[in-house]
Every structure is written in C-alpha cells, then in structure tokens.
C-alpha cells in the first residue's frame, strides 16, 4: 500500500504553512521529512494520517492494506500519548478493544507486541513509573499491535536523552528491517534521518514546499558498518547545507515573534 501526498497545501487562518507538497511513500519504504522549524512537518504528518483536513490537495492511499492490518496508518507520537490511568498492557490493548478481535486474540496480540518491544516484564506498570524511553516503547508496542502498513512517526525520539535515542533507533531499524512496514519519519535530527530513511524529503521554510528529495544509497543494514559512517556524515552535511540558511532565518523569526 502506497501513501501519496498530492499537492497538499494548508493554512492556519492567514498563515500559509504548506504549499503544494507532493511525494509518495511506497509500500515498505521509510521516508524522513526534515526542514527548518515551523516549516509544517508535523502539520503534514497530521494531514497524511487523516487527523487534519488540508486546505488544498489531499492524502491518498493506493493499493490494498495488508489483510491483517487493523489500522494501516498508525501514529507514534512525540509525547508518547499514553493513557496515564492505564497500565502498559491496557495502553497497548487500547486500540484493539473496539475491534472484532476476541479477548483471547487481543491477549495474544498484546503479548506479541510487548515481547517485540521488550516490555513483557512491565505489563502491569503505569506510565508514570516508566522512563521516557520505556514510555515510547509502549507507544511503539501499541502501534505494532494494530499491524500498521505505514507508521507515521512525529519526532518520536526528540523527547529522549541521547543514549535512549540510540537504543530506540536500533529498535526502529530492527522493526523496519523486513520491509513489511513503511514509515513517514518527521524529525529535526538529520543523523536519525540518514540512518533510518530510504529517502529524505527536505522541506523549505514556511510555507513548506518540497525543496529536494535525497535518496540514501545504502540499505539500513549497510549503514550500521563503520565504513558507512563517513558516507552518512557526508549525506548529513549535504542535508544540513540545504537547510542551514533557512533554519537560521526560521530561528530568528521565532525569536522575534
């Protein structure tokens, strides 16, 4: 199943946020979206996931979702969006309760998602008892439970410390390794973008337009090797050179706002 951004424009009142953004996320592909602050990355993700109606253009799905998918487009949120009154297990089960799955089937799905994210021993814990990294793992487990075709990830690591970010990045790489699940990965962090994505969509300063689409010429497995580090750094610098001047302007704009 492909996800298509078709000439998406959006404005909040008089403020133009996005301007005719178009690209396609093919089945199993990971596309990162980067750009200066305020360029509309998160707005674009909300539109792609059906949480926001665009002012113009549209988000489209092409092809059938996987037969067992309960929610083809599934978000992983920056702030985790966990229900604080529910245990880890109940949070992961939350999107399944209204589905046609029986209690036993739900239990099996939850067990599998908790096992895949290393949360099996924390099923009875409440979110407040967990570290930031573990909370995000719960968010990922919840997303995996509905067997998504495409994960929509809105800066999923930005609220975490660098060590936890590294560990979770490894988890993402492992989860996306078999190519059955695609992702749209919004991030400020160019290192994350080049490590995870197949392609990086660079948006311009507000109103966000597609400035360039950079293809990462390596498989994710190859990127883990020491030899690849130099090439990844070069790609990262290339992305930064595309963004830098506008990022400075965007920062000044924010400061003067």
């Amino acid at each position, binding site marked *: 199943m492909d996800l298509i951004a078709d000439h998406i424009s959006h404005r909040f009142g008089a403020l133009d946020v996005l301007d005719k953004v178009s690209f396609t996320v093919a089945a199993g592909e990971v596309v990162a979206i980067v750009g200066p602050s305020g360029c509309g990355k998160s707005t674009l993700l909300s539109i792609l*996931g*059906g*949480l926001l109606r665009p002012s113009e253009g549209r988000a489209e799905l092409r092809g059938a979702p996987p037969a067992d998918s309960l*929610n083809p*487009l*599934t*978000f992983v*949120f920056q*702030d985790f*969006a966990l*229900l*604080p*009154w*529910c245990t880890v297990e109940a949070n992961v089960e*939350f*999107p399944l*309760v*209204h589905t046609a799955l029986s209690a036993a089937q739900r239990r099996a799905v939850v067990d599998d998602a908790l096992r895949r994210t290393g949360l099996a021993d924390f099923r009875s814990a*409440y979110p*407040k008892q967990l570290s930031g990294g573990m909370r995000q793992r719960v968010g990922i487990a919840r997303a995996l439970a*509905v067997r998504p075709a495409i994960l929509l990830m809105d800066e999923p690591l930005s609220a975490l410390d660098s060590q936890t970010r590294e560990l979770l990045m490894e988890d993402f790489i492992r989860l996306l390794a078999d190519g059955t699940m695609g992702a749209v990965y919004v991030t400020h962090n160019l290192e994350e973008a080049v490590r995870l994505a197949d392609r990086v969509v660079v948006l311009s300063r507000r109103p966000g337009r597609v400035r360039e689409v950079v293809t990462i010429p390596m498989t994710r497995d190859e990127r883990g090797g020491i030899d690849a580090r130099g090439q990844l750094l070069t790609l990262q610098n290339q992305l930064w050179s595309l963004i830098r001047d506008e990022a400075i302007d965007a920062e000044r704009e924010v400061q003067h706002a």
Partner: protein
Amino acid sequence: MLERAPSQQQDASTSRPVAFRGAGFTPGGGRVSGWIALVLVIALWQLAGSAGWVNPLFLPPPSAIAVAIYKLAMSGALWQHVSASVVRIGSGWLIGSVLGVITGFAIGLSTLARGVGITFISALFPIPKIALLPLLILWLGIGEEPKIATIALGVFFSTAISVYSGVDAVPRNLIRMAQSFNVPFPAIVARVVWPGALPSILAGFRITASVALLLVVSAEMIGAQFGIGAFVLQAGNLMQTDQLLAGVVILSLFGLAVGKAINVLEARLLHWR
C-alpha cells in the same frame, strides 16, 4: 540575604563551607501538629468556660456541647433532624450532580451545547440559589421539593462548570491518539475523556458537597420543621446556645465525613496519579 564580601583579605589556602541557602518554601503535611492545636484550643475553650472567664450563654464549653449532643441522641431528636437533612442533601446532591455531569459533558463535547450552556451558566451561576427558594415554594409547594430543588440547583451549576473544565483539560493529544486508531466517539468519551476529566469532577464533588450542606441549612432555616438547619434556628431563638453549637458540631462532622468519603473515592479512582 546576600553574602557580604569578606572585610579582610582571606587566605587563598583557607577553605570554608558553602552556606546552605535552600531552606523553606516546602511546607510539610503536619497532621500531628494539627490535632495537637485542635486539642489545645478545645482545652483552652473548656478552661475558659469552667473558670467562668466567658458567659456560658454566649459560648458554652465543649463539655456542655457534648452533653447536649448526648441528650439529643438519647431522645431520638438527633436522628430525626440528621436523617431529614441527609435525605434532602442526598436527593438534591444526586439530582444536581447527575444533571451537572450530563450538562458539563455536553458543553465540553458539543459546540452547540457549549454556546447555549455557557451563556446560561454564566447568567445563572452567580445568583444565590437560596434567593430562589420562595419562588420554588410557589412552584413546587411547601413540602420537601423546593428544598431539594434549591440544593440541586446549587450543586448543578458548580458540577457543570467543574465537569466541562475537566473535559476541556483532557490533553488533546490523547483524544487525537484515540482518533488515530479509529476508536469510536462513545469509546473515546468513556475511555479517554471521562477518566481524564475525573480529577476535576471529583474536585467539583468536594465543592458541591459543601454547597449542598450550606444550602440545606439555609433552606431548613427558612421553611422546615425538622433538619439540622431548623434545629439550629430553633435553638438560637430559644437562646439554647449549647444545642445551637451541638448542631454546628454535627454539621462540621458531616462535612468531615463527606470529605473523607471523597478522599477514599479519589484514592480508589485516581490511584494512577
């Protein structure tokens, strides 16, 4: 206070501890000190009465109040008055709370209900509800209904406000999360909005319990034969200040009991906080 610069040249090799400046601004619970203070005040009050420092007609000592409560209990009058008040408070609070919760949720979730509801609540909430009692007596007769309706009205507005404030305070990201999983509207209300608004709703219940107590006493003072309010008024008219204060103590105990019940409810329902 800012540390003064040393008046004399200090030896570079001399060390001195860094002065601690982080004291205060962290008051603790102090439950024991509260009970000790209460016992001390009651003891002083008793001493003032026993020693004849104050006229017992104006301020009867605690022992006289305890005796008055005991006599009321033995005569059966205490239960008659308390049960009448409890029935009125219970009925009025329940009706007001149920309607308030429904209205609060409607205002919190529906644009139309918000537009209409907030206008009416803003206009009617500031009215002292006891001022409506004569009108309610005209409408509903002189029985229990106008007293219960007065309490229900007082409870309704505070409940509706606390509920829609609670619904407004539910983090939108949780609602968007539920929507992103295609969770149906009723399930979002039941599993996200309701528990998210519960802290505010329970805080509202704490306030409305006090409002109900206030209004039942006022309503009973205006038009009732039985009830703590009627009893206190009657005792005041007869200058039976020990009985008057006995009624006040019973009201205080009732308020404490309701507060404790809500504490228990909060501990059970909001254990995740």
